[in-house]
């Protein structure tokens, strides 16, 4: 356990310090949201209607942007090999790394949501709902995205391939995240059903992601 805590602490420190780049995700999130009014016009009513979808898309793309950092830096300096060879099961190490990545890169997106909600003319309760769904849904993005990150690092090709592999897997999260937000804000349908499925997706990713990523690292690293 101590090794896992140490790993989480180390990853968070590296991510937040100079050169870590975790907070670039938040900046990217902000930029995507700011771009939207330029594309669809500064119509406040329309922006408020599209708000949850825009926030979810922005968060999805921002989390995709930082996923690349999950394994590449460790692979470059060789510490990934040490983690792979250590006595701690690789699945647990992967889960710890993903948790640290979510704390450093995913949680800031949720915290930034209220500010960005203002830009999109969402009222307080709507913003809170979107932030809540993001809080429930971003772990799913990180933990399923980890599979793609592990595949990409073993292949020495990050970037584009990662996006192509991860985006189809994240579609269900997007669907239920936006559905839950819209149900709470406008819709006649209930908030509970899509939100429960969203939480289920996160738990499912929590179980599946570490195993698939560990399998891919174990088979892929030389």
């Amino acid at each position, binding site marked *: 356990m101590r090794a896992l805590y140490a790993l989480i602490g180390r990853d968070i420190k590296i991510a937040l310090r100079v050169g870590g780049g975790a907070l670039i995700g938040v900046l990217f999130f902000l930029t995507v949201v700011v771009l939207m009014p330029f594309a669809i016009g500064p119509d406040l009513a329309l922006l408020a209607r599209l708000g949850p979808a825009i926030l979810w898309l922005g968060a999805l793309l921002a989390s995709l942007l930082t996923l690349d950092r999950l394994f590449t830096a460790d692979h470059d300096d060789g510490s990934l090999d040490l983690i792979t060879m250590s006595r701690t099961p690789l699945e647990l190490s992967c889960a710890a790394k993903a948790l640290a990545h979510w704390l450093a890169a995913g949680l800031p997106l949720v915290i930034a949501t209220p500010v960005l909600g203002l830009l999109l003319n969402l009222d307080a309760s709507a913003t809170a709902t979107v932030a809540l769904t993001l809080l429930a849904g971003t772990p799913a993005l990180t933990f*399923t995205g980890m*599979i793609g990150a*592990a*595949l990409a690092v*073993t*292949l020495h*090709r990050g970037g584009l*391939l990662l996006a*192509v*592999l991860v*985006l*189809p*897997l994240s*579609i*269900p999260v997007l669907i239920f995240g936006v559905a839950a937000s819209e149900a709470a804000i406008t819709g006649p349908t209930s908030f509970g059903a899509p939100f429960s499925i969203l939480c289920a997706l996160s738990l499912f990713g929590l179980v*599946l992601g570490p195993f*698939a990523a560990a*399998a*891919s690292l174990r*088979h*892929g690293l030389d």
Partner: protein
Amino acid sequence: MTLIDLANPTRFLAFTARLLPWMAAVTAILLAVGLYQSAMAPDDYQQGATVKIMFIHVPNAWLSMFVWGVMSLAALGTLVWRHPLADVAAKAAAPLGAAFTFLALVTGSLWGRPMWGTYWEWDARLTSVLILFLMYLGLIALWRAVEDPSRAARAAAVLTLVGAINLPIIKFSVDWWNTLHQPASVMRMGGSTLDRAFLIPLLVMAVAFSLLFLTLHLAAMRNEILRRRVRAMQMIHVAQAGQRPV
């Protein structure tokens, strides 16, 4: 001859060389019979002649999922049993599966226009099949991104098994969500709701398309094995050329 004997690529090549002409002939005959029966099938009382799209659309849709199932088995073969031909099978199946999925989407779209009044609808079945198509393309991209085939095989195997989650979602999407796409009518509890006049040609076509896939798959596997041999010979050639004194 058992499955393990076919692990030897040379035996596999010899065995499939004898098998393939027969399979191709049976496929051609079944396809001809199926197409004839489809053409002779009566018009539907509601849909008219457009119902005949079903005889192409449904086998393609079934195969789009069947091929991913084959690839998942091959992925297990790669990761668990280390069967030497498993990654060849997985690699050869991906473009075929993408083609069947694409055809299912296109024929469904052409059928949807007269029946639903739209080429595309964001309904659960259509969306999940579109995701399947995207995952096929991602898998092909993954295969093409890596030079070393065995390394690519293991990465692709992990992705294939993860993507297999989509299969039950596609199958049950019409039951779980209230969709425009009709619910299952052939493989369902309590027997088929399809009339015999439509069911028999459909089943013939399904068998014909499955055989078509198997034939193409075996041929593609042969090509892949030969391609790897050519590559190995080229590398030996280059290595020898490098050793020669200048």
